[in-house]
């Protein structure tokens, strides 16, 4: 194998599994250490820079970081990254002084943002302080988009949304409440220098089966119903409720129904329980509130009497797999099941809808009705129009919308500075030794087995009575400290200098995970068979360094390294060092300008 080039930003970035998995690449271990130190404001600001909505995401994020967490590979449960983020938001001081200031001078460029959700607000935050005149158009009275309308208040209180959208609107952003854009052509005619569309995926999919029309009064589309609940238009529901669908929206629906008078609430899904799209913790939360989930049931027809819904009948199915491993749901040969109910909530998916974009506005759409976009720049076929969030590639989640927003802001900033927007800026990377003394490191390297700490919940009886009472109470500082201690500091990298190594084997002997091997070089596949411990996780790289005196190479399997630093403590010559890798993605502004060499 070739010598590993650790100066390539991606190499160590991949080792920080959580940061690599996060669409916005938040430096997770860095802020977890700050939380452990009680520096909540600093932890908040690191989050705020990269994911814009720490308080909101700390309650609602889909957490792609957690399945990636290294603890999963060496223990069972990942670090509760998401809920630690909330700790930073809950316990921070007033941070308004640390926010960017509204631009003192405008640069004369005008940018229109369609929709006031997470994607648009991210673009606004990145561009407004640079001097752009940013205008956000939203049909609702307050900013937040789906964050405000679709996420139940018992998961995310309005105060948190008000605070974090307020930080952005306070940057001199012009928010046009109640102004829904209904013509792209008209918007284009207004002569904006750039337009960003972050209008989400606002249409809930319907279920067209017999009885749908007749019983329409008691059949509701999930996301529409949730926003009606959110705005207080809907305050009660029947005693018996069936929720169709297995995604996070379905989970929000059933838990909301439980609080609005639903005594017997059932979730019914077409496929198996394991294959449900809802995050495991959202399923747990629903079941905790006494909501059973029934699986392998395909809805056949609604039953009704005199125009009133009486229930819904399902066909029992089972999964069969063809030779190519594709799944098919076939009749299980069991009798149909009837669920009597008063109301049905249909949460079987969301769709994009762009009725307001004229098809001759210069924006091309693909076969799925989504705009044709450059995946790196988010630019549509109209050079001035960009898309992000759910309206770009279909429904995802908040953290993806934020990531899209940052990239689109870079594109807009570069375009309006006359630069090639395809030339994407490199991230900013630092690598710093953490050595403080002979056995002293600037991070806690005493790694121990420890189970994940549970977030305290509000008493169930109390919680179910009030749809606005937040269920999760969040970690207190003591619990947060304990949970933060579970972080393995994967950003503190093991950096090896071959010219200092005397091949004494001390690191090989002390490594608790048997990550390190000194052996003759070979091709990766073959080399992996000769390492000290099995090396079967091909998604994790081998760190290879040659130029040792014996002609062998040092091979370190990054897979299960605990970053405990014992290799460096045991090294007599300092050939191993623990160096903190800090990566910040480059956002709109001067740092995304192309690097020019000076003539001098």
């Amino acid at each position, binding site marked *: 194998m070739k010598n590993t080039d650790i100066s390539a930003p991606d190499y160590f970035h991949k080792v920080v599994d959580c940061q690599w998995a996060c669409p916005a690449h938040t430096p997770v271990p860095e802020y977890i250490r700050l939380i452990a130190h009680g520096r909540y404001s600093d932890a908040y600001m690191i989050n705020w820079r990269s994911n814009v909505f720490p308080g909101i995401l700390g309650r609602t994020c889909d957490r792609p970081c957690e399945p990636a967490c290294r603890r999963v590979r060496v223990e069972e449960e990942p670090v509760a990254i998401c809920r630690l983020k909330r700790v930073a938001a809950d316990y921070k001081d007033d941070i308004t002084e640390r926010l960017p200031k509204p631009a003192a001078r405008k640069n004369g460029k005008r940018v229109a943002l369609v929709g006031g959700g997470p994607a648009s607000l991210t673009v606004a935050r990145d561009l407004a302080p640079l001097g752009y005149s940013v205008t956000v158009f939203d049909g609702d009275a307050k900013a937040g988009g789906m964050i405000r309308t679709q996420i139940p208040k018992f998961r995310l209180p309005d105060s948190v949304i008000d605070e974090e959208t307020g930080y952005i609107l306070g940057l001199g952003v012009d928010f046009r409440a109640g102004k829904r854009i209904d013509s792209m052509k008209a918007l284009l005619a207004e002569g904006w220098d750039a337009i960003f569309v972050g209008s989400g995926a606002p249409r809930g999919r319907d279920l067209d089966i017999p009885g749908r029309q007749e019983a329409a009064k008691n059949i509701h589309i999930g996301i529409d119903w949730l926003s009606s609940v959110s705005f207080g238009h809907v305050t009660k529901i029947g005693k018996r409720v069936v929720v169709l669908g297995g995604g996070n929206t379905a989970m929000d629906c059933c838990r909301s129904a439980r609080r609005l008078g639903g005594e017997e609430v059932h979730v019914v899904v077409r496929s198996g329980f394991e294959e449900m799209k809802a995050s495991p913790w959202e399923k747990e939360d629903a079941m905790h509130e006494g909501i059973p989930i029934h699986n392998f049931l395909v809805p056949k027809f609604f039953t009704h009497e005199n125009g009133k819904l009486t229930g819904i009948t399902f066909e029992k199915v089972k999964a069969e797999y063809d030779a190519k491993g594709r799944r098919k749901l076939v009749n299980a040969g069991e009798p149909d099941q009837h669920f009597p109910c008063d109301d049905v909530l249909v949460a079987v998916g969301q769709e994009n809808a762009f009725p307001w974009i004229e098809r001759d506005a210069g924006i091309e759409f693909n076969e799925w009705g989504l705009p044709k976009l450059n995946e790196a720049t988010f630019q549509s076929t109209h050079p001035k129009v960009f898309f992000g969030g759910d309206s770009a590639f279909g429904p995802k989640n908040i953290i993806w919308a934020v990531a899209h927003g940052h990239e689109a802001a870079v594109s807009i900033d570069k375009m309006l500075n006359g630069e090639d927007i395809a030339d994407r800026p490199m991230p900013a990377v630092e690598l710093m030794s953490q050595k403080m003394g002979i056995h002293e490191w600037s991070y806690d390297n005493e790694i121990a087995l420890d189970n994940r700490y549970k977030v305290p919940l509000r008493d169930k009886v109390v919680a179910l009575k009030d749809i606005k009472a937040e269920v999760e109470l969040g970690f207190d500082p003591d619990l947060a400290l304990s949970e933060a201690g579970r972080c393995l500091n994967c950003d503190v990298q093991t950096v090896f200098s071959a010219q200092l190594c005397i091949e004494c084997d*001390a690191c090989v002997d*002390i490594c*608790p*995970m*048997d990550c390190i091997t000194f052996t003759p070089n070979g091709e990766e596949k073959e080399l992996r068979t000769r390492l000290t411990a099995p090396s079967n996780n091909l998604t994790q790289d081998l760190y290879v360094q040659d130029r040792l005196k*014996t002609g062998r190479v040092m091979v370190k399997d990054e897979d*299960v390294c605990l970053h405990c630093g014992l290799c460096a403590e*045991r090294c007599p010559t300092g050939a191993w060092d623990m160096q903190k890798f800090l990566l910040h993605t480059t956002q709109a502004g001067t740092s995304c300008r192309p690097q020019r060499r000076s003539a001098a």
Partner: protein
Amino acid sequence: MTYLAKPKFHHPELPKNALGYTHRDYEGTVSTLCAGCGHDSITGAIIQACFELSIEPHRVAKISGIGCSSKTPTYFLGNSHGFNSVHGRMPSVLTGANLANRDLIYLGVSGDGDSASIGFGQFAHAIRRGVNMAYIVENNGVYGLTKGQFSATADRGSKSKRGVTNTDNSIDLAAIALQLGATFVARSFSGDKQQLIPIIKAAIAHKGAAFIDVISPCVAFNNHAGSTKSFDFVREHNEAVNRLDFMPSRMPIEIKYEAGTVEVVEQHDGSKLALRKLAADYELNDRTAALGFLQQQAAKGQIVTGLLYVDADAEDLHAHLKTVDVPLNALTEKDLCPGQSALDKINAGLR
């Protein structure tokens, strides 16, 4: 060294031996020796050897004297019996323990100071008597605990860290062991586990006095230019006579070797030693030739490593003394005092 205990985490797919243990189960507490000490590598090799042999930890007694090397039994086999004896007195304590309970595996761990200076006589007699043990000397050529004075195994002409030249002749413990009748003699290097681990396994399986001289660089006081026990010097002057593969008796020999390149020696317990010859005319079963070879190569400044001599039909002290098969410490009062009638019989036999 490190102040931290090694985390209890281990690699999720760590191999297990016949007893269901991983190599981590054979560790002791974390080493307090200097970072990079060769002794820690020998500790690692002992752990690996015992793991691969699927030894039950409670069947091992590790006995040592005084010195850096004699501290190491704390760092391996944390669930075995141990005795940290007086300086240089490991061999007599080991001999006594062995006589009392022949059923344990005896690991004698010592250093060049402990065995070549203060305990030189003890070393000689334990070897001479053929005590069944694996006697490992962790040989760094200096007194590390007292800051690097030459030990008795330091080569004449080699230099101390401060630049002083050693004018005394050195003791070659492997050569002495040969002379004293050790039935298994090997030399190895802490920086070459591939060679060292099979040698330790073979020595443990050997029934008789097995002696291993392991050159182990002292990173603090004897790893400089001018030293003949530094990592660089040993690597440059290492002349391995053979490469050993050790196979326990229950394992059939599966590896195919080219004819004439491998010598297979079967030990008393049925275990087999497959030796890939590196020095073409080296005779493994010839004590005097081995001695001669060692001296010739030493004169050239080379360090001979590998399995130097083995007597596959060796006998141990218990055989010489014709003791009973039952360990002496397990004999009951009834066995030891068989009663008047037995005494009468003996007396009658002497009349």
